């Protein structure tokens, strides 16, 4: 029976259609509707919102900031997460499990709680760390963290680190443990082994981790909302504000849809590039 597989996946397809496809299509349609302060949403077809989003320098700057933050977060998680995964992979058995738990544990805690932790530590002059540093006389004014891009990047990198570590960890698991010994026996020093043997082999893992982290960072809401607040808006917090504060749903929809399409394009493009680059080497 050829229909059986389709019938079996029908419930999942229906659910997927109901909760993903339909709202998505409605959001896309919404972005073409008109809106006015007093008239509300008018179900007509206008390009006003798209024109505004694509030409206004305010939106341009905000999208530019969103992807700059996402890029820096990705870079930071790769620079810290890849070595972290490598060290973790070389640990002996009781420690390895323990530290893996330490790294993955935060995934069990709400993003809001984790981000508020940063706010408690660095939140203005009442933040614990700022207080301590000021009372020790190391700094005179609180470290600028809240409402700064640096703050958002650091907090997001912390929140998204487990995804990078997991991706690199998976790549390291596929590594033949004897390969490093083989390189050593051929005369390679520890640094050469890392750079020439280990790194190229875990590169697909780093890149797939980077795609995940980038997508999550660019679409993150809770962390930029808490650390960046109203002063430092990114695409997701802007869309939220348009929906819930300004009540300009069509404009918010245009921002959200543009973010989605830009992300899909970036993620698919990068994946294609990675696949083509490594097709010969890794099956």
């Amino acid at each position, binding site marked *: 029976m050829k229909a059986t597989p389709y019938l079996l996946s029908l419930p999942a397809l229906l659910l997927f259609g109901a909760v993903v496809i339909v709202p998505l299509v409605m959001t896309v349609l919404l972005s073409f509707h008109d809106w006015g302060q007093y008239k509300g949403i008018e179900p007509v077809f206008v390009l006003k919102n798209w024109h505004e989003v694509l030409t206004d320098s305010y939106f341009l700057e905000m999208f530019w900031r969103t992807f700059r933050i996402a890029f820096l977060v990705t870079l930071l998680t790769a620079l810290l997460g890849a070595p972290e995964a490598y060290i973790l992979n070389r640990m002996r058995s009781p420690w390895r499990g323990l530290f893996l738990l330490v790294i993955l544990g935060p995934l069990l805690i709400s993003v809001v709680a984790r981000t508020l932790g940063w706010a408690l530590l660095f939140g203005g002059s009442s933040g614990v760390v700022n207080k301590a540093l000021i009372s020790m006389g190391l700094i005179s004014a609180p470290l600028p963290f809240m409402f700064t891009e640096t703050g958002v990047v650091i907090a997001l990198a912390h929140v998204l680190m487990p995804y990078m570590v997991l991706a690199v960890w998976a790549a390291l698991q596929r590594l*033949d443990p*004897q*390969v490093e*010994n*083989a*390189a*050593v*026996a*051929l*005369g*390679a*020093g520890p640094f*050469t082994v890392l750079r*020439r*043997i280990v790194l*190229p*082999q875990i590169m697909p893992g780093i890149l797939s981790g980077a795609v995940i982290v980038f997508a999550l960072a660019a679409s993150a809401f809770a962390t930029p909302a808490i650390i960046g607040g109203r002063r430092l808006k990114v695409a997701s917090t802007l869309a939220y504000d348009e929906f819930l504060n300004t009540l300009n749903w069509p404009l918010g929809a245009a921002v959200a849809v543009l973010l989605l399409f830009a992300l899909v394009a970036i993620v698919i493009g990068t994946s294609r590039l990675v696949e083509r680059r490594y097709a*010969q*080497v*890794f*099956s």
Partner: protein
Amino acid sequence: MAFLTLDRLTKRFGTHAAVDGLSLGVEKGEFVSLLGPSGCGKTTTLQLIAGFVEPTSGGITLEGRDLLAVKPARRGLGIVFQSYALFPHMTVAENVGFGLEMQGVAAAERVRRVGETLELVGLGAFTGRFPRQMSGGQQQRVALARALVIKPQILLLDEPLSNLDAKLREEMQIELRQIQRSLGTTTILVTHDQAEAMALSDRLVVMNHGRAEQIGAPHEAYERPATPFVASFLGKTNLVNGATVRPEKIAFAAEGLAGTVRTRIFQGSHWLYQVETAGGLVTVIRQNTGEPVPAEGDAVHLAWAAAA
């Protein structure tokens, strides 16, 4: 003094002695096999020589120099790993050339020597391939070429043929022996396959529980096993009335130990029998000469010459 000397080499993991006071001298150009069941310490011994594992006590000298004082990366040994451990992100030529690159050999010279070595293992046309695009046997040759191209003082082979199918393994055994003889590279092979060890080696080190049970030429160890373990590990043996007898030394005769043929298995070049006797089940191997042979259930008599 031998070319490579292991002097009361010992490696303990906790209280377990993986290698227990192993002493061995390997002559230049010799092919020595470390043979034994898994867990006998043969692989640990190889890793001690390679420097991947530090000994608890004992010494290793190469041409009189203390090898333990030399870092693994400076020992200049060629190693072929059981998994081949090829660099998957490098082409065959890059894999084989890696050791030369590490030695700082100039690019042109490198290309020449890589080409030469790949010709030697019969892969001259495969320089641009990646390991994933090759068969197990071809990958095995790349691993061998990578180990040989640096002109190692010693070639260490860690179960190099165990991942190949039976027919390919036999071909590679012959090829490995020819290459080793033509280059004269001192070689140490680690294997659990007694047939492979006997086919390739000048001398065997039969190991059990981290110790050498017997060190000697394959023929000598087979004919005159020093311990019951060696006797049972090298080929098939029968324990008849307290004496060990090789199955192929037993003949059907007019008189001798009486028994009944339980099973008879045809194996092409020979017949394999299980004969039930008063002294227990006896395995007998007879050449297939084309003459009539006893059938299952037949009453027979077994005779053999007393062990030398």
